[in-house]
């Protein structure tokens, strides 16, 4: 029973982690109408920046701050040079241009840092674990990720619903021209917004650094999952991204944890292991397809801006 609860918590934690990545994606996706495949690259840049800065300064907190700054700047630069030319284009052009960005970013990082994964460990303050159930120690750092996810969700929610900036963002996404006529610099606003999305991606990368290997290509593994999350939740919906992330995290984790054992009830252990592993890899895509077949615009549909 404790095992099940622990796995459930693992699933939730994984979901929150995915939400951290998906938050920025859904923001850019929903409000600006841009599919940004390079979101994974910003995730990678955040992790690299955190690893390098932590090594220099000796402080993980400082590393995170620097990662946020770096990914924000890179994000805004990308918007300024490339993305702003894509607002009026169809999704196909956006997919391809940002695909080109991935190739560029990966190769650039290889040239700059080589092929050896970088070192980044959990800061001492968050090292260790707490007993959540009798006999079950849970890593403090994973709990910290859950806390960060909740924090990000709150911040996003507040920005969008409570601030003037959020109001402009919402207005700008529904009717760009109208807002522009009212004297708001839409171009600047979108640059800043894209930067904000990049900051979220970089933050997710920096937080992930101590948990996963900081290496070239680390973003793409997460990117597809993040897209699944965003699409399940409904593009542009922060609430949807949160629900979608938790759903994907829990389904994926519980699938890995229990499917093989479940299958062993019906078939011989050897094939159960193989098929179980295969099925659990497919599980989230099955969930996504099922959701879209029933609700073609995701769980929390938002009217998406097309410019």
């Amino acid at each position, binding site marked *: 029973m404790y095992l099940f609860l622990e796995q459930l918590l693992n699933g939730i934690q994984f979901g929150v982690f995915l939400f951290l990545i998906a938050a920025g994606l859904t923001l850019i996706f929903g409000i600006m109408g841009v599919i940004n495949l390079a979101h994974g690259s910003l995730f990678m840049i955040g992790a690299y920046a955190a690893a390098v800065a932590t090594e220099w300064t000796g402080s993980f907190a400082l590393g995170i701050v620097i990662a946020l700054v770096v990914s924000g700047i890179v994000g805004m630069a990308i918007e300024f040079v490339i993305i702003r030319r894509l607002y009026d284009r169809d999704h196909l052009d956006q997919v391809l241009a940002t695909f080109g960005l991935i190739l560029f970013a990966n190769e650039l990082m290889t040239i700059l840092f*080589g*092929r050896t*994964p970088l*070192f980044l*460990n959990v800061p001492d303050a968050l090292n260790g674990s707490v007993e959540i159930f009798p006999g079950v*120690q849970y890593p403090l750092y994973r709990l910290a990720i859950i806390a960060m996810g909740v924090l990000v969700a709150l911040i996003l929610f507040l920005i969008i619903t409570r601030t003037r900036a959020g109001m402009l963002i919402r207005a700008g996404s529904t009717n760009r021209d109208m807002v522009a006529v009212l004297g708001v610099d839409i171009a600047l606003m979108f640059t800043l917004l894209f930067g904000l999305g990049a900051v979220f991606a970089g933050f997710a990368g920096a937080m992930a650094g101590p948990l996963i*290997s*900081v290496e070239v290509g680390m973003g793409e593994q997460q990117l597809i999952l993040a897209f699944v999350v965003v699409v399940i939740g409904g593009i542009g919906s922060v609430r949807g991204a949160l629900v979608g992330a938790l759903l994907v995290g829990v389904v994926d984790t519980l699938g890995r*944890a229990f499917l093989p054992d479940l299958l062993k009830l019906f078939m011989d252990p050897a094939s159960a292991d*193989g098929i179980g592993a295969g099925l659990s890899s497919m599980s989230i895509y099955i969930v996504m397809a099922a959701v879209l077949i029933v609700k073609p615009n995701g769980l929390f549909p938002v009217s998406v801006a097309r410019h």
Partner: protein
Amino acid sequence: MKTANIVIATSMALAMSGIASAVMAEPVKIGMITTLSTGAGYLGEDVRDGFLLAVAEEGGKLGGAEVEVLVEDDGRKPGNGKQIADKFLKRDKVEIMTGVIFSNITPVVVPLTMKAGVFYVSPNSAPSIFAGKGCNQDYFVASWQNDSLHESAGVYANELGYKNAYILAPNYQAGKDSLAGFKRYFKGKIAGETYTKLGQTDYAAEIAKIRDAKPDMVFHFLPGGMGINFLKQYSQAGLKDTYPLVVSTASMDEKIMGAVKDAAIGVRSTAHWNLAQDNAANKTFVEGFKKTYGRTPTVYASQGYDTAKLIASALKATGGKVLEAKDDFRAALKKADFASVRGEFKLANNNHPINNWLGQVVEKDANGNIVNKIVKVVSPNHKDAYADACPLK
């Protein structure tokens, strides 16, 4: 997209050795198909650099014969491997092939090479299909047979007195082979067996299962980034000391140690080569590698270097002839008369090395560096499980 076709011609080897003028004799062409891109790119990079170091030591030669090394990246894709092999064999007319890192590419490249009547010397991957009934007189291995990597970890686990092991590997052929190899020699019970996703990043679910199973130890085959992911998370969960890890060298190389640092301390592994191994060849190699490339060599670099030295020993014996003197070259390769960085080097009847497997443990040395310390030889003269099925003498 990952198809990089990279040609590094002799110019590099020549430039490194500072020799500008080429000798008139037609150089022996060696085709190296290796993996330079993707997350596993450092494996191929080190094999290549180890190999080229040996060439550079002789100033662009191996065993006194001028060589030209063509290097291309397979991007870890068998389809690319085939294309490159086609090009090397048909257009460049190479006489020796080498370089493949991954076991899914070997079965594509090796049959083509054999069909063309060209020699193949493996610096890394050596799947079982070419070790037993399917062995070939022109196919040589300078590293190990795949299974031995994991068999030796099973032997080490026995030596350490573990009776109950939890084992996990990615859900693909090499992963399944690794678990089979471990189980072939491990005498204790298997507390649990889990297949993970290839390229998986989050291991919380697996770690919870391990804790629940309460094994004596854990064996895993998670090379490269996967191993880094797992180790970081396993150590954070505080299980590293409760349920110690005994793995094979692929899951605990120098790059992984560098990426996780303290999280690697206490992890035990088996390998056929160690950075600190005390012999003259190894000293030359490690110093030369550090000087040339400015980084510490991994086990893969040692394998690339040994591969070049093995080829050099045969070229020396035949005076630089390969395909014109096939029988002599083959016999010379089989003799393997060279000073290996791993110490002794001999080949079994199936042309796979008989290795002395070392037990190692990761420690912090006096200077605070994380090092893989040799504990003892755990499986001396380890012949692979397939050699007896090979009809070669």
